């Protein structure tokens, strides 16, 4: 059923901290690896090897450079606070499990659906006809079509891990979250205001990507903290030592002379 379910209390999703992501691609690789062997695997590749590899990934990590530029309506103090150092920001991009996504409602077959119980957006591969319309409807590039399977593929929020009772409680998290070496990824219920992820979002000003599309992403991004103006304000490294040997003992003067040759 591709009509959207009524708003539910539970909204499972991710919170991604752009302040500490180092762009190592560990989440993307762990995702590919898990989903190659998980319930939905193998995650197909048209061409896994060779000069032009091509295949499906659920998670992609971009890197951006941000050049501070005067923003409209900004005064001098705000500009100063924002700092003047260009920033590099690493930016993982995957399905945001939106609350009102058109990727679900455009699907003609009912293959693309949003779960009532936890808000996870999934594709039922047995129903998908591979019309690709849902991928056109997603602003965030979260859906990749597989020529091999003839169906649409997308992030499952590791639905085959997070409820997996054969795992220890601590392992019931998406593979990307488990893999992140900097702990830039957090998983939880964003519908519960008291959850750790909701508190993090409130505390750090977590935000939505392209809110103007009206899809209401569940996943939130935490903004990078403003960089200190590294070059100019950091303490200067110590100067080269210039010891005055003219007042030193004759022995030291002699050693200095020998070593300075």
């Amino acid at each position, binding site marked *: *059923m*591709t*009509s*959207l379910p009524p708003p539910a209390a539970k909204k499972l999703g991710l919170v991604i901290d752009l302040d500490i992501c180092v762009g190592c*691609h560990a989440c993307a690789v762990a995702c590919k690896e898990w989903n190659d062997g998980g319930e939905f695997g193998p995650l197909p590749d048209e061409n896994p090897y060779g000069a*032009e590899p*091509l295949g*499906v*990934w659920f998670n*992609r990590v*971009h*890197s*951006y*450079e*941000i*050049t*501070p*530029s005067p*923003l409209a309506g900004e005064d001098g103090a705000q500009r100063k606070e*924002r700092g003047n150092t*260009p*920033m590099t*920001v690493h930016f993982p*991009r995957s399905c945001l499990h939106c609350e009102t996504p*058109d990727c679900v*409602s*455009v*699907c*003609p*077959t009912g*293959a693309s659906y949003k779960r009532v119980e936890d808000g996870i957006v999934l594709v039922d591969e047995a*129903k*998908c*006809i*591979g*019309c*690709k*319309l849902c*991928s*056109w*409807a*997603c*602003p*965030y*590039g979260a859906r*990749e*079509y*597989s020529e091999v*399977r*003839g169906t649409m593929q997308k992030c499952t929020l590791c639905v085959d891990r997070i409820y997996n009772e054969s795992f220890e409680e601590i392992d019931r998290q998406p593979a990307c979250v488990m893999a992140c070496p900097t702990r830039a990824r957090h998983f939880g219920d964003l519908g519960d205001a008291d959850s750790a992820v909701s508190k993090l979002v409130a505390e750090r000003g977590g935000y*939505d*990507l*392209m*809110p*103007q*599309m009206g899809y209401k992403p569940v996943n939130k*991004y935490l*903004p*990078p903290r*403003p960089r200190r103006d590294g070059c100019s304000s950091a303490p200067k490294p110590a100067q080269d030592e210039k010891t005055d040997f003219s007042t030193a003992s004759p022995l030291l003067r002699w050693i200095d002379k020998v070593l300075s040759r």
Partner: protein
Amino acid sequence: MRPAFSVIFFTVMSGCGYGLLFLCGLALTFDSALFGRIEGLTLLGVGAVFVVAGLLASTLHLGQPQRAWRAFSQWRSSWLSREGVASVASFVPILALSWCLWHGGDPNGVHALGALLALLAVITVVCTAGIYTSLKTIPAWHNRFVLPGYLLLGLLGGAIWIRALHGLLDDGNPRFAVGSPGLTWLIATLALASWLLKRAYWNSIDTAPPAATPESATGLGRFGAVRSVEAPHTEKNYLTHEMGFALARKHAVRLRAVALILIGPLPIVLALATALLVPRSPTLASCTAIAAALLVTAGLFVERWLFFAEAKHVVMLYYGGARS
């Protein structure tokens, strides 16, 4: 967006087919005895063939065409599904009218079926356009000129093919002879309207403010200008292949001019030429009508190719696209 031939063929042929069927249905609504048996069946048959050819082509675009029947299920939310349902439903009046024309049905029945066919033809084209206009991610399609464009160009294609068919089987019926003034004026009006509408559409997409920017896509605009320095992958992926199609500006300008001539001034000139040639050389008049249909259809293909090739998807902002 990558212009896939199957989808271009589908939208053009289905548009022409439903334009033709709409005009036939409308004509039969007011005059059940308008067409001779052969003429009526040929018109309905050609309309149906266009529509079926379009639908078959559209299934070539699918990864799992054997499941295409599932696409009829989600008409509550999906324009693509609605399009399928409306398209199949339109075959009820097509078949019933064919039966009536063959056996000579009750005029009131023909009036009603004609009206139903006209209505379903419009609904189907509205649904086709809805597939595109509903996508907020592609501003060039989420545009108020797209729906009227689909309707108008479908009508133009339908009218021009009706005249070509008249040319092929001119049977001396004075109201529907190849040079009939009614059809001449209809074609000329539709061509002028199409020309104006496409110009307005292109002007609109060229001047529209961006729906999104790299800054809003990443949410990092508060820190300054955002520039992609490293893509997630070195080779292409599905997204960059499907949505990263870029058309050189100079090619777009030329192709727009070609499309505008083929759907605007050309059909007007050829429609008038056909009307003027009839008394002198009916054969030449018929040939002109057929040539007009082929050239306008070519123009519609160029127009539809551009509709895809010029459309930018907001996801490309993540890959260094400047604006969408």
